[in-house]
């Protein structure tokens, strides 16, 4: 079964894999050009201003200097990236578990919903600048406080995405499953969870953009290593170039994680992507 079958007037690829690969890749790159141009222009302006102005490199280092100093200190940067990544991943894992558990509770019981939702919103109003040092005070300088802070910052969009996703479940399908003899739990996993997946990924993408920054903030509040610590040390020794190099690393991490969510989404919900592409083609 490799040939295309024709259904009505639409071509149906059996394997679900796209045929025209290269043109699509080219088109996607082309779409990135405008933002690349803007970034290049900003960097050029900054470079010119930093070199011609008389601000001194400890105030405004040029992008070229940031890049070359970052590269020269790549070993230290890498050594400090690892603990930050560890805290990010562990915190995010906890956030997924807690976020999912909360969403199940909220979906299962109206009482839980009324009891929990306001509390969850309150957790999002806590000023991190006050909370982070306290969490470090209570849980020490090891991994745990960072994990907790990352989870605190990122679970909310995940929970909200799931809860709203469950609510989007098709009524007719639910009735149908019930006539087949399905109970609540069966309907939840067969119907509600798959319906919620696209919403979940929307929430996941919001959450992941906070994750690295939250880990760095937690390190700032107290740690022995990590990008937050490295940044703080660089600032204290007036190495603005290294502060900015660390910022670049942290942005790159977030961008990579953000991109990863699309990869995972396509693997977990292939039908969404396929349907969208077919919709565009016809």
């Amino acid at each position, binding site marked *: *079964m490799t040939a295309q*079958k024709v*259904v*009505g007037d*639409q071509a*149906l690829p*059996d394997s*679900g894999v796209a045929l025209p690969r290269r043109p699509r890749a080219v088109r996607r790159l082309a779409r990135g050009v405008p933002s690349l141009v803007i970034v290049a222009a900003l960097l050029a302006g900054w470079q010119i201003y930093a070199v011609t102005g008389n601000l001194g490199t400890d105030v405004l280092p040029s992008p070229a200097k940031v890049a070359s100093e970052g590269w020269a200190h790549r070993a230290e940067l890498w050594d400090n990236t690892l603990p930050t990544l560890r805290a990010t991943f562990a915190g995010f894992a906890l956030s997924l578990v807690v976020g999912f558990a909360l969403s199940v509770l909220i979906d299962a019981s109206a009482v839980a919903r009324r009891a929990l939702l306001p509390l969850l919103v309150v957790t999002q109003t806590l000023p991190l600048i006050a909370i982070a040092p306290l969490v470090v005070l209570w849980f020490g300088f090891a991994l745990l406080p960072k994990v907790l802070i990352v989870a605190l910052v990122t679970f909310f969009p995940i929970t909200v995405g799931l809860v709203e996703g469950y609510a989007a479940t*098709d009524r*007719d*399908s639910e*009735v*149908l*499953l*019930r*006539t*087949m*003899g*399905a109970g609540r739990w*069966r309907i939840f996993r*067969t*119907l509600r969870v*798959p319906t919620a*997946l696209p919403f979940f990924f929307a929430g996941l993408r919001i959450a992941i953009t906070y994750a690295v920054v939250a880990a760095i903030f937690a390190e700032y509040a107290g740690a022995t290593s990590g990008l937050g610590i490295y940044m703080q040390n660089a600032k204290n020794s007036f190495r603005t170039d290294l502060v900015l190099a660390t910022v670049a690393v942290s942005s790159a991490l977030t961008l990579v994680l953000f991109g990863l969510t699309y990869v995972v989404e396509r693997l977990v*919900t292939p*039908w969404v992507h*396929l*349907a969208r592409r*077919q919709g565009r083609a016809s």
Partner: protein
Amino acid sequence: MSTDGAAPAAKVEIRSLSRSFDGLDVIRDLSLEVREHEFVSILGPSGSGKSTTFSVLTGALAPSAGEVLVDGRPLGRRRDQFAYMPQKDALLPWRRIIDNLTLGLEVMGVRRPEARRRVRPLLETFGLAGFERAYPFQLSGGMRQRAALLRTVVQDRGVLLLDEPFGALDALTRAQMQQWIEEVRGRHQWTVLLITHDVREAIFLSDRIYVFSPRPASVLACVDVPLPRPRTIETLTDPAFTRIEAELLGTLLQRG
């Protein structure tokens, strides 16, 4: 309507069924019956309470009064007597066709390999062979309806409840589906209760037609269709067909 003791025992019998929602009467004193291997249609204006009648049969709604008998016994809390096909096909977009077809069996606790084994022999008949791995959005409207019907049939329950299965199809596809149903039904000896608002569809497919009144639903007329089977394109021009069509339209328009 004759429901005297001499007639053969009904497979399904609805007796004086009533149902209301917060004082709004939707079904009032409704009685009908379906015998084994019979194809029976419910014809009525939209909003009259046809789908609500199905909800009572599937157990989704409790009757306010009256009762439903299956094989002569009260339906009670039994949920496994009817296989239901909703108005929309309700195929799950994330499941490939084969996994949509086995859904009912899986819910009933049949293991996936076994469920697939039972579905496979039917794929050819339902025109779905080769499309097992497709997603629902990749199928045409007619194929989706056939998939939904196969999902219903394979549950192997006593009676099929089909709620306007062809309502969303274009006229040509619908005509094709009707002829196909007529053919397959004869071979498989299904017992069917069909909801439709298409008079010609009801005549073409049915042994008997119940005409529902506007809300609250009750039976306005019960019309037998003595046309010979198997029915074909020629059936549509049979004088008896035209006569029954006139009779049904008369009943519907007089009260609509």
